[in-house]
């Protein structure tokens, strides 16, 4: 297994050095331990699918895609800002970048070179807990997206992450830095997609800083192809009275893990974190939550749902930590799962760790099957069994998906879901 570590250290050493941040990653790489199942954070996540491959660093792949290829993927109108990160590289020729008051968009590399406002924050959230993949991302970060919002934007901004290459077993390391200034507002829609069924890995890190009174609506849809390995680290830091509402829909990939790290640094902030995962044949979807209430009077809602079928496997590992000073915290964590087969598996572990004495916190989890009462009701209304089963699953997911608050993205997610579930429901 240390072969994997040697491999990534060699990749990092060979990568072009464009800025100081990479040095932190390289240094970390010499210190980190390989993730293993003795570590709590990796206990339920099978590691072979990512450690058994010697992925090579992706390149920019200029000219491989045309702007029209992007048009078919977008969920926002064609004239809105849309940033394309191909294999982690910022692609201006594929992106739509009309100037917009209150919005600054840069290639992360340029932002570093030109010392863009707040660039020193890069790595300040992710740096503290760099594991192997975090370190790999840092060491290989070249390009990426830098966003800074200073107004209440009415138009949404879309980021499309694509993995695409002629090579196989390619690793991309998309990196995104988002800063929403005081009382500014942004709707940031992210998609992870692929054009070809390649075995590749995406290892992304996103850091989000919300200043006082800032608001971010952040729906994300991951519909990578079935052989992809997908890893996302999402870090959010919230100042006083800021509001973050994130909804992550993980539908694709062979192996997918999303880590959410939320940190309240000011009072009266609110966070709503929603997640949906779909894991079918040979798929693994993991969601990890690490919500830290260290200041008083903040509220958080974490709602996660999953549908598992075939030999699909899901992992939910959610932790809310309420520190001693975080009085009047109000936090609710829930995880509900629908299992459609005997072989499907969910390992769910919602946790509350509370050190303050005046708080309202709850956590709960359910694991269930298709409710025979619901099924009978639909069939008694003439809807055939397979269609009825699929409808129940879609309803279960739709409640969560509606949190995206962006109909075009919701419709896309629901149609992918319907397409995936129809043949499954027909066989039940």
């Amino acid at each position, binding site marked *: 297994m240390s072969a994997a570590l040697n491999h990534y250290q060699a990749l990092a050493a060979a990568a072009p050095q464009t800025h100081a941040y990479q040095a932190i990653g390289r240094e970390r790489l010499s210190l980190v331990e390989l993730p293993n199942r003795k570590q709590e954070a990796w206990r339920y996540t099978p590691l072979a699918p990512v450690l058994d491959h010697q992925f090579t660093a992706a390149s920019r792949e200029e000219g491989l895609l045309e702007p029209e290829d992007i048009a078919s993927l977008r969920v926002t109108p064609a004239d809105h800002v849309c940033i394309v990160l191909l294999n982690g590289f910022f692609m201006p020729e594929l992106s739509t970048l009309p100037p917009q008051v209150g919005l600054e968009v840069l290639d992360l590399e340029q932002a570093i070179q030109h010392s863009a406002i707040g660039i020193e924050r890069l790595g300040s959230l992710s740096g503290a807990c760099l594991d192997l993949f975090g370190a790999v991302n840092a060491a290989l970060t070249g390009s990426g997206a830098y966003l800074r919002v200073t107004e209440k934007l009415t138009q949404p901004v879309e980021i499309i992450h694509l993995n695409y290459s002629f090579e196989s077993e390619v690793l991309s390391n998309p990196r995104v830095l988002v800063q929403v200034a005081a009382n500014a507002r942004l709707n940031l829609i992210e998609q992870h997609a692929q054009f070809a069924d390649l075995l590749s890995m995406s290892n992304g890190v996103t850091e989000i800083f919300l200043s006082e009174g800032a608001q971010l609506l952040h729906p994300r849809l991951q519909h990578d192809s079935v052989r992809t390995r997908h890893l996302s680290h999402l870090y959010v830091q919230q100042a006083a009275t800021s509001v973050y509402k994130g909804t992550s829909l993980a539908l694709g990939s062979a192996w997918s893990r999303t880590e959410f790290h939320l940190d309240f640094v000011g009072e009266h902030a609110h966070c709503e974190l929603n997640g949906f995962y779909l894991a079918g044949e040979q798929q693994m979807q993991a969601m990890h939550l690490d919500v830290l209430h260290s200041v008083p009077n903040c509220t958080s809602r974490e709602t996660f749902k999953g549908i598992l079928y075939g030999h699909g496997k899901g992992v939910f590992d959610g932790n809310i930590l309420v520190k001693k000073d975080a009085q009047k915290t109000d936090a609710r964590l829930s995880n509900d799962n629908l299992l459609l087969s005997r072989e499907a598996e969910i390992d769910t572990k919602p946790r509350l760790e509370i050190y303050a004495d005046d708080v309202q916190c709850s956590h709960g989890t359910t694991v269930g099957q298709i409710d025979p009462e619901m099924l009978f*009701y639909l*069939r*008694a209304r003439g809807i055939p069994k397979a269609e*009825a089963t699929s409808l129940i699953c879609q309803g279960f997911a739709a409640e969560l998906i509606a949190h995206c608050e962006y109909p075009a993205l919701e419709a896309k997610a629901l149609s992918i879901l319907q397409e995936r579930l129809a043949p499954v429901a027909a066989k039940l």
Partner: protein
Amino acid sequence: MLSIKDLQASINGKEILKGLSLEMGAGEVHAIMGPNGSGKSTLSKVLAGREEYEVTSGTVTYQGVNLLELSPEERAHQGIFMAFQYPVELPGVNNTYFMQASLNAIRKARGEPELNSLNFMKLVRTKLKALEMDESLLKRAVNTGFSGGEMKRNEILQMTLLEPRLSILDETDSGLDIDALRMVSMGVNSLRSPERSMLVITHYQRLLDYIQPDYVHVLSGGRIIRSGDKSLALELEEKGYGWLQEEAAA
């Protein structure tokens, strides 16, 4: 329309229906009354095709077809509708979408063209208006967070949309206030016609003031122990079931 002969049915090995026979002609409204545990709900569930109930003996023939061989959805396609005693919540499933899927599944099975959303909305609005119901019901998830009255209204809305040949109302009146009861009856009465039959299962005579039955049957111990016209319902209201049960036992 419907012919039930010596029907015996059990659930989890417990026999509930013990030789029930009933003949229903087209255009007739039959009321089934009876004390708790007499098998009223079991009868409706067996007719609608609930698989947990095992039919151990007897026959059910509907329009010349062996009903017991049909799946629940096939029964719906053939024109059978059961208004549930406890309608089921379907979180996340939009009520309009559900009703359109239901109507179109039935139309498709009958080889009729499916209705597009526009035409369906026109139709459902007409039905809502006739039942004096609020349109907000259409935007919500099926029965989710509905009050008891709203659920029953929603059942009747579906019934008037699907225009079934045989409607089974399983204690649709239980828990309803007078206004809701009036509305439910209005829906049922609007469907009365020489081609349609209705089986109204109820605890109380009250509903039968609004929906006048042609026949009243008393179910007790899994059998029909007395049949009569609507005056039987009035007699039951006055005397209870005790005297009939004693007679049947004698």
